[in-house]
């Protein structure tokens, strides 16, 4: 079919030479139809065709206007070769505007409709409550950045991000950061990207090291109301750091504030990971028992570590971030069962879970104090769990298998308030769920006798400044 010379004088086909465009072809077909209909002298039909023509014309105008906009916005050349024009259609800059209230309405510009659907389906009672929640994420690396993106897309109310590092090209094997972020602080780069994704979230960026004395104080101030260092203003702290020291610091801050937090980790060989929920006084703190990790099943002796610090995989990190934020959503929005410890062994696709009871002999005094304070809460939970287990058992009937998933490290019967000895041995000798192991020994290498024989000798009259001067004097010799 050709549009050339076949239409009447009123036809728009004259200025629309290119009939390969589907819309134009359609229009030209309509013209032909109209001339045929005219021949039939049927006014009604003619009217309808005119209307159709009008609508096609307006569609055409809109398409052309949109194409014009695209050309203005997109630096991409739309010139000659085939397909380029199509590509440029998607490069128009769209700005996601703020949305005052979450709506469940399914519209192509409503980013919350699928989330609010959770509420319609009865999974979550009140999804919109997420807007009242503030989460602090410490460590914006392979796990933390992805967790932040998830929380942002879920529409969390506030997101506080902490990291002392900058983005490097070496990070590009992980998710989230892009090469153009290189050189920016991780926290600023994250805010920049995340604000574009969801401007409804209140972002706060803290480029700092939390492990120094100053950093610790600033960290505590930042997660408390008006920086008072006492009243938490966040609902949850997520630890996405990659080292033991920083985890211990988060543990200390959260114990002092009675702040619930979740710990996450990926092994240095990149093939296992875990998340752990820590409620001061109610569950084990990070210091109660040595850090628990998932056994990768790889013999340390066969693992070659020469020339490398740590390996990392975007897959393992992405999965751990997923576990962490899933648990976060369950905790914040009160649905499903919040996991106390969930491990991931990538080599065997094994996911051990367990509960970890606090250790009455914990070396952290703040933890021991809170254990006493929350003894009643632990008791309440224990009873609720027992009642639930009975229910499950009855449901499962004869098919019930041994439940390897809920072994406790320290049984609740452990003598409450018993001195260090009883509690510690209990914790160390306790049974761990299959596939979970301690990553560190407990502090027991030095007994009283060894200490007595080898301890440093200082006198009360020793002056600390004198000693410092003595040490410095040795430097110049």
């Amino acid at each position, binding site marked *: 079919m050709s549009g050339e010379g076949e239409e009447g004088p009123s036809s728009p086909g004259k200025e629309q030479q290119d009939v390969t465009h589907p819309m134009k072809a359609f229009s030209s077909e309509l013209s032909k139809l109209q001339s045929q209909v005219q021949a039939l002298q049927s006014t009604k039909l003619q009217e309808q065709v005119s209307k159709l023509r009008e609508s096609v014309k307006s569609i055409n105008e809109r398409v052309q206007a949109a194409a014009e906009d695209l050309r203005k916005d997109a630096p991409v050349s739309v010139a000659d070769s085939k397909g380029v024009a199509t590509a440029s259609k998607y490069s128009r800059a769209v700005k996601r505007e703020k949305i005052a209230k979450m709506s469940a309405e399914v519209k192509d510009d409503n980013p919350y409709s699928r989330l609010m659907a959770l509420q319609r389906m009865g999974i979550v009672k009140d999804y919109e409550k997420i807007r009242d929640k503030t989460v602090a994420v410490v460590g914006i690396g392979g796990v933390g950045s992805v967790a932040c993106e998830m929380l942002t897309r879920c529409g969390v109310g506030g997101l506080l991000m902490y990291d*002392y*590092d900058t983005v*490097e090209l070496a990070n590009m094997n992980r998710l989230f950061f892009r090469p153009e972020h290189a050189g920016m602080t991780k926290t600023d780069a994250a805010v920049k990207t995340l604000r574009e994704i969801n401007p409804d979230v209140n972002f706060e960026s803290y480029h700092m*090291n939390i*492990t*120094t*004395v100053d*950093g*610790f104080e600033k960290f505590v101030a930042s997660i408390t109301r008006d920086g008072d260092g006492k009243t938490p203003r966040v609902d949850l702290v997520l630890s996405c750091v990659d*080292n*033991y*020291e920083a985890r*211990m*610091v988060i*543990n*200390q801050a959260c114990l002092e504030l009675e702040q619930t937090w979740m710990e996450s980790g990926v092994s*240095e060989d990149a093939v296992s990971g875990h998340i752990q929920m820590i409620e001061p006084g109610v569950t084990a703190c990070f*210091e109660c028992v*040595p850090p628990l990790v998932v056994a990768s099943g790889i013999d*340390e002796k066969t693992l070659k*570590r020469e*020339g*490398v*610090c*740590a390996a990392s995989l975007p897959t393992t990190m992405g999965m751990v971030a997923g576990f962490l934020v899933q648990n976060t959503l369950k905790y914040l929005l009160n649905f499903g069962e919040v996991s106390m410890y969930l491990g991931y062994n990538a080599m065997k696709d094994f996911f051990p879970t367990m509960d970890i009871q606090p250790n009455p002999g914990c*070396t952290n005094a703040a933890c021991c104090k809170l254990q006493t304070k929350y003894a009643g809460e632990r008791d309440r939970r224990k009873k609720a769990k027992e009642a639930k287990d009975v229910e499950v058992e009855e449901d499962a009937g004869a098919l019930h298998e041994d439940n390897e998933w809920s072994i406790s490290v320290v049984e609740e019967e452990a003598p409450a308030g018993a001195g260090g000895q009883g509690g510690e041995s209990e914790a160390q000798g306790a049974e761990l769920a299959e596939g979970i192991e301690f*990553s*560190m*020994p*407990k*502090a*027991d*290498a*030095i007994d009283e006798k*060894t*200490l007595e024989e*080898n*301890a*440093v*000798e*200082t006198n009360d009259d*020793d002056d*600390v*400044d004198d*000693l*410092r001067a*003595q*040490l*410095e004097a*040795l*430097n110049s*010799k």
Partner: protein
Amino acid sequence: MAEWDAGTKSTVQKIPLLKTKAGPRDKEGWANRLKEEYTALIKYVQLNKGSDQDWFTISSNKEGTHWSGKCWYIHNLLKYEFDLEFDIPVTYPMTSPEIQLPELDGKTSKMYRGGKICLSIHFKPLWSKNSPHFGVAHALCLGLGPWMAAEIPHLIDTGIISHKDK
């Protein structure tokens, strides 16, 4: 301690153990701990000097929270010297200090960002096992010393670092 050579093992046993479990936020306790730290370090430096194996200098700020100095390594009769520094973490002495050699940042994969040396998988467990009785002197002896012995010759041989006079 299979990880460490016999020399390191015998040396570390001569460094006095510390008694006070106190970090820098515990004002009174820290003053005592700091005395022990200095005393243990003085002993360790004297030991090194006595056996002609002096390999670092160190001093701290008045609060004892920031430490800096120099460490050096002799390779083929040439001395390679580096600045060293670290902060005392708020959870010290339950966690060890993270020693930094800023000049080598980005030059070796056995280092975390900021020039923090990547300690062997055996170091942290050993520190943990002996806490709170290990101090700065132990961290230098068991951490930085062996790290330099393993990494510096490699960095020189591969031409990543060269002697200042070359």
